[in-house]
């Protein structure tokens, strides 16, 4: 029988305690929501501390805590350094967030921007990409929750996955964006303190020099800076991260919910705070050979090493950190995706005269619906986490250039933007299947960039930025 780091009853107790706390906190925060704008964008009044914390905590996903150690175990030094470069997404989004807040003072979503800037065809391509990505991420988070609970406490995958989804849907449903940001703040503190604690304990107990000696003697490839697969993975990972952040409504809705002049500093600080986290979580994996730990699956390496070094107390810390990381991303994604559906499809396409109350009710139904759909898709464990994420890279990297140029450049038209996203995705997928995941996001970004360049050279039209401001749109009861 497998020995688990935690007893199943301990795992369940932690989950119940956290679950009750988060849902009650979400309910308490939700009482302050008076309008749909309050619910979806926290009244557009989020200050710097909460803004920076939510940017950092949302970007610390299950991938940062599970996949960063996995990549370090597989690619060595480059794995953790390369993964930490995903912080560039947040850092480069900082100036764009300032521009977004200025261009769309009354905007709600990234879909809003694409529709107004590029028209319906580009909007349609963009929504397809957004939905594929959002579901890929939602499913990977739901699955990661189930896998985490199963690998650390032996709790059945389906029960663990259902519990984590129920908790996150619960507090997002009650509290909206206000609850998402407030819980993110606490979760960010837990993640920073917990990860630092594990790294300190590991260095103190195992020692840097002994880890280095062991790797030099037994696994020199992991210290090789010219490790071919790792060198190939580097920029693909960066473009994947940039695509995720530039296009996703998770980051746009935050930029729109922050107070004026906060977005730039918040994203920059969030990015700089995030930067060392994959290095710390990744470093844990380098100690595995020294400790004689060779896991059945590489994505189990982080929690396994931490639990082995720190014992039961360590397993509890790891459990809480990863649970916080999962929850902080899952709630953000649920809120941002339901905003996208409510605003871009329901409000703009189906019911333009919908009242504030109707929008709020629809938004809540959407969160619930998304939660149920994610749960259904997570039930059969349709793919591995890595496969799900790498496939999405081909989609999101195609949006990098159209979003960047759309925000600042007036000459790129909707037809070229739509073609850039569609063909970028297509060629990215071809690269994924024909060559490997190393090239999916890179190819997608390169093809999309070339089409945008042709579009700018050939276009003689200039977009009027005033078309982006739709003014106040909500109809009072």
């Amino acid at each position: 029988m497998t020995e688990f780091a935690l007893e199943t009853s301990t795992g369940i107790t932690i989950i119940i305690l956290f679950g009750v706390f988060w849902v009650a906190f979400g309910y308490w925060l939700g009482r302050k929501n008076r309008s749909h704008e309050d619910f979806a964008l926290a009244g557009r009044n989020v200050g710097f501390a909460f803004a920076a914390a939510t940017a950092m905590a949302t970007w610390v996903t299950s991938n940062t805590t599970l996949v960063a150690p996995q990549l370090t175990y597989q690619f060595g030094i480059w794995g953790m350094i390369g993964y930490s470069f995903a912080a560039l997404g947040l850092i480069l989004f900082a100036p764009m967030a300032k521009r977004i807040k200025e261009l769309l003072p009354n905007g709600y979503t990234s879909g809003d921007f694409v529709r107004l800037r590029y028209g319906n065809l580009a909007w349609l391509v963009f929504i397809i990409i957004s939905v594929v990505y959002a579901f890929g991420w939602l499913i990977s988070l739901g699955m990661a929750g189930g896998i985490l609970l199963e690998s650390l406490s032996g709790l059945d995958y389906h029960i663990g996955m259902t519990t984590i989804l129920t908790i996150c849907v619960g507090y997002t449903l009650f509290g909206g964006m206000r609850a998402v940001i407030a819980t993110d703040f606490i979760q960010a503190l837990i993640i920073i303190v917990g990860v630092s604690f594990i790294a300190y304990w590991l260095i103190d107990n195992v020692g840097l020099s002994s880890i280095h000696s062991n790797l030099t003697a037994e696994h020199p490839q992991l210290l090789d800076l010219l490790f071919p697969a790792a060198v190939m993975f580097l920029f693909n990972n960066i473009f994947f991260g940039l695509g995720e952040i530039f296009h996703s409504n998770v980051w746009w809705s935050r930029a729109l919910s922050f107070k004026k002049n906060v977005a730039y500093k918040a994203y920059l600080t969030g990015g700089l705070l995030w930067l060392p986290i994959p290095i710390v979580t990744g470093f844990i994996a380098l100690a595995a050979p020294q400790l004689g730990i060779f896991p059945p699956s590489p994505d189990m390496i982080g929690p396994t090493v931490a639990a082995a070094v720190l014992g039961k107390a360590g397993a509890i810390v790891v459990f809480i950190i990863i649970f916080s990381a999962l929850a902080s991303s899952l709630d953000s994604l649920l809120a941002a995706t339901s905003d996208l559906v409510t605003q871009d499809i329901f409000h703009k396409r189906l019911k333009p005269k919908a009242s504030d109350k109707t929008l709020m009710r629809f938004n809540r139904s959407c969160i619930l619906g998304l939660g149920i759909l994610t749960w259904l898709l997570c039930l059969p464990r349709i793919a591995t986490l890595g496969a799900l994420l790498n496939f999405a890279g081909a989609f999101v990297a195609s949006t990098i250039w159209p979003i960047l140029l759309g925000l600042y450049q007036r000459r790129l038209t909707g037809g070229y933007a739509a073609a850039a996203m569609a063909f970028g995705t297509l060629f990215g997928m071809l690269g994924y299947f024909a060559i490997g995941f190393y090239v999916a996001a890179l190819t997608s970004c390169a093809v999309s960039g070339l089409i945008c360049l042709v579009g700018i050279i050939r276009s003689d039209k200039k977009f009027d930025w005033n078309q982006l401001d739709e003014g106040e749109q909500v109809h009072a009861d």
Partner: protein
Amino acid sequence: MTIQKNCFNYRYILLVLCFLSVLPTTTLASPLKLSGPDSVVKEGYFTVSVSTTAAAELNRVTIEVASDSEFSENTKQFPALGDFKDISLTGFSNGSYYLRARAEDAKNQTYLSNTIEITVKHYPLWQALTLFFIGLVIFITLVATLLLLHRQWIHSKHHKHHD
């Protein structure tokens, strides 16, 4: 004559017995089976799986890796985690590696699995560096475009403000 014939038979039987004792009984009777990647490994990491046909549970599964099929040179041992039967190994340089699994039953009887050969051949460095530099050029172009456009916008904003 009769005596001679008997002696001959005795030697034969002895020979057969010796042959049977030399036979790799652990391989024939071994309930362990090791399987790994069929194709050439290009990333230096792979997962091997140990399956067992025995009704009795086998413990202390360890993978032995050597650079020769006799397991006489550079043999390294990688213990499996808990009672998991899959083991993810990493950090291998170019070369051929021979792997077999070793396990024990409740009576401390040791079993060895079949031996598999895994070839590691990393991507050529020129291929990796080509992708790296393509990525680098696109990234620098992207960052330069963003900073340039953002700077232009800030300047035009200040300019309008002063007007």
